[in-house]
């Protein structure tokens, strides 16, 4: 596969992860369990949307078809989005949202770090320098919450355990590669997610042990987002996300 095309495709998939998770977090705005979290959730959403914009913009340049961030965000159909199933899962309760964010941040922080130190692509190193710091913040914030909930009341522990049961089987997809990503890995632009796995597992094990949580066995890992096969929840998310552009095509602020 053409190198530029492969990298562009890979970055669109990564951008999709960030856009969709950012959108999910933004749904909390005005609904968080307390004021401080009502500030923190949109703040984290903002980080993710910023990272998505950087990824989409660069992917558009590489692709050379004149597509920009808005085209990727608003004008594609569900099958064209290649985000992980994990990030499109509904918010559920606060424990679900914190755990989903923790799983993702624990993966992305070392992923960006590896791009920063090893990527052959200068623009990506620039994007990664900023994003790595932001994701370190997300790990800390969500990791602390997982511990508070797991080591909290009977109710909070029950809820975070239910979140682990509901979400852990989506984490395997973090470590899968599409053909385009494999080509970008071989080219030295992106890290191999397999090398992230030990770091990710370490972070999860450390926080889970403090939170009295056990890592469940996953006999049937769920994946498919990277191929464009999504869960039902995704269609609802997309209709909300794209409503304005679909109703008033080409509208601008």
């Amino acid at each position, binding site marked *: 596969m053409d190198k530029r095309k492969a990298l562009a495709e890979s970055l669109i998939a990564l951008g999709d992860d960030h856009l969709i998770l950012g959108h999910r977090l933004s749904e909390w705005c005005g609904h968080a369990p307390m004021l*401080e*979290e009502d*500030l*923190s959730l949109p*703040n*984290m*959403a*903002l*980080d*993710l*949307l*910023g*990272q998505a*914009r*950087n990824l989409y913009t660069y992917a558009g340049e590489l692709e050379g078809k004149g597509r920009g961030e808005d085209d990727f965000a608003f004008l594609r159909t569900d099958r064209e989005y290649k985000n992980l199933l994990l990030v499109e899962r509904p918010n559920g309760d606060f424990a679900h949202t914190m755990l989903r964010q923790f799983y993702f941040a624990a993966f992305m922080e070392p992923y960006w770090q590896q791009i920063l130190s090893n990527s052959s692509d*200068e*623009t990506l*190193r*620039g*994007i990664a*320098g*900023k*994003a790595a*710091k*932001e994701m*370190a*913040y997300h790990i*800390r*914030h969500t*990791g*602390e919450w997982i*511990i508070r909930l797991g080591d909290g009341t009977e109710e909070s522990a029950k809820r975070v355990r239910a979140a682990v049961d509901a979400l852990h089987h989506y984490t395997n997809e973090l470590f899968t590669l599409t053909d385009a990503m494999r080509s970008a890995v071989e080219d030295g632009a992106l890290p191999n997610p397999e090398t992230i796995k030990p770091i990710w597992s370490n972070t999860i094990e450390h*926080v889970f042990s*403090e939170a009295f949580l056990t890592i469940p066995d996953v006999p049937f890992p769920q994946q498919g987002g990277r191929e464009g096969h999504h869960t039902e929840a995704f269609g609802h998310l997309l209709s909300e996300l794209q409503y304005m552009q679909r109703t008033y095509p080409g509208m601008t602020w």
Partner: protein
Amino acid sequence: MVTALKRMDANSHDDAKARAWAAASAVPDPEVPCVTVADLGILRSVEIEDGIAVARVTPTYSGCPAVLAIELAIEAALLEAGFEACIERVMAPAWTTDWISDEGREKLHAYGIAPPVKGSAGGKLALFGETQVACPRCSSVKTRKISEFGSTACKAHYQCETCAEPFDYFKCI
């Protein structure tokens, strides 16, 4: 004669560069207006290239909603100072709070925002690890973090346990 002319060119070039820097660097940050874009280290450089003032800007956060406003304000300031202006967004190296000038730190403090604790940028803090932040009002170090995230992406929320006043902390990144 030729050398003298060249020197004059060089002089007027330096002069233009200084005027352009003066105009661009005076632009206040839209969210923390007590400091300028130069104080924060967001404005990396202003060069005169082919008669155009080129300002290079590095965003604080990937999703900072003020980036566009900052770029437009710098462009407007340069236009007002009589320059044709061009703004370039520079992503690498990534902005760090270590780039905030000493003057900027003093201005933040006077405004009631605790400046980032020096030298703590870049390092990863342990879970529940807290940086000791001094209260910008009474200077007590008996403070506690209320929220990792404050009123803008770049700030965390703290409270002083001595004077009980809540305050913003410009977090280290």
